């Protein structure tokens, strides 16, 4: 807890859950006073970390791709290929069409989300403390604890679902899928009556996909981060609290290694499944 003496636990926690923001208000673009700004707010820290990690992924993998050796691959290439084969296998097991986008999309999602989740294992106070030394008041280092980031990914996937649904089944087929299932009848009149019911159910099902994707990732990581913060608070409570908190922090971090990989994998897997469903014609 990089606390000054005059900071209470509640303030500490609130401080840690606060993004570095810039927003457009009546006075122009301002930093960190965005309660009234609403939509035109930008979480600068989330975006910077997210962009850096995505770029790191692209650069690291691109370096392998640029001089990929067939014989005698290096360590880094072997590691990258291991991830490739894992993703490729997951895609091939689930997605039975031919689409050159799905596999790179799954790979990007998996590695990028994993890297963003990995920021959770950086000690909670380290980077915010460094930032405060540099004069930046707020810093939230785990982008996936920001719902904006998780929703941006899941909405991207959602748009692809709709795009491929329409592309594969045609617009009429897509509307038909939304309105003629799950209840159908041979009687025309009953069928027309059933359309609103079907539409309600199917559209909820469709909308639930991106929402559940985003909220699952966000919820897991936000809760994990919050527990790290609470443990950090405990560590400020005397020598006993410091030792106990240290042990608890370590255990939670070890457990979290599982969580961050798992969440990245689930996001990737569900993306593949949803897109595979979008490609299937009934």
């Amino acid at each position, binding site marked *: 807890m990089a606390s000054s003496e005059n900071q209470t636990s509640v303030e500490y926690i609130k401080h840690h859950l606060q993004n570095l923001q810039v927003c457009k208000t009546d006075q122009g673009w301002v930093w960190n006073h965005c309660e009234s700004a609403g939509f035109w707010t930008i979480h600068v820290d989330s975006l910077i970390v*997210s962009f850096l990690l*995505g770029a790191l992924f692209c650069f690291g993998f691109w370096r392998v791709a640029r001089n990929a050796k067939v014989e005698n*691959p290096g360590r880094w290439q072997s590691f990258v290929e291991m991830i490739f*084969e894992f993703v490729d296998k997951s895609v091939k097991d689930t997605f039975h069409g031919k689409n050159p986008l799905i596999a790179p999309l799954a790979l990007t999602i998996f590695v990028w989300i994993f890297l963003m989740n990995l920021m959770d294992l950086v000690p909670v106070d380290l980077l915010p403390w460094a930032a405060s030394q540099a004069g930046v008041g707020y810093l939230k280092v785990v982008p996936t604890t920001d719902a904006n980031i998780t929703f941006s990914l899941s909405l991207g996937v959602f748009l692809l679902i709709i795009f491929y649904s329409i592309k594969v089944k045609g617009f009429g087929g897509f509307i038909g899928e939304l309105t003629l299932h799950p209840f159908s009848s041979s009687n025309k009149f009953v069928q027309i009556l059933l359309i609103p019911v079907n539409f309600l159910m199917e559209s909820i099902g469709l909308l639930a996909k991106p929402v559940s994707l985003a909220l699952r990732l966000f919820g897991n990581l936000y809760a994990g981060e919050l527990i790290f913060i609470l443990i950090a608070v405990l560590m400020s409570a005397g020598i006993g609290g410091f030792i106990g908190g240290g042990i608890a922090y370590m255990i939670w971090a070890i457990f979290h290694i599982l969580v961050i990989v798992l969440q990245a994998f689930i996001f990737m897997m569900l993306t593949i499944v949803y897109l595979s469903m979008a490609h299937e014609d009934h």
Partner: protein
Amino acid sequence: MNINFTLFINMIFFVGFVWFCMKFVWPPIMAAIKERQDKIAEGLAASERSAKDLELAQAKAADMLRDAKTQSAEIVDSAKKRHAEIVDSAKDDARSEADKIKNGAMAEIDQEVNRAREQLRSKVATLAVAGAEKVIERNIDEAANNDLFDKLVKEL
């Protein structure tokens, strides 16, 4: 959890990264993996093929070895036979040669004996004449005696 403009900026990042990955990362690495897989499969097939070849070659070698063994046994047999023949013929040759030498020697011995006998005969005649000359001395008519001696020589 307040949704704002951040979402849309990050979505642009997302699209960019996926595009980059699809364009520059996925295809070359996948191609390398595929090529390696092909190479490995090829190598395995080749090794299987060569194992089969080896088996064939081994069978062939065993056949050849067996042939060579029988052939060599035959050669040894015939050589033994030939050996026996040579030994026999040499024995015969030696025997006949020995006979020839023996016969020659015999003939020579006979000749020598005959010659010695002739010499002895002529020497006995002159000796007898000389002895008779000494015994009888001058009172004997040489011509009558010569007849007598000639008769004696002929009887010898």
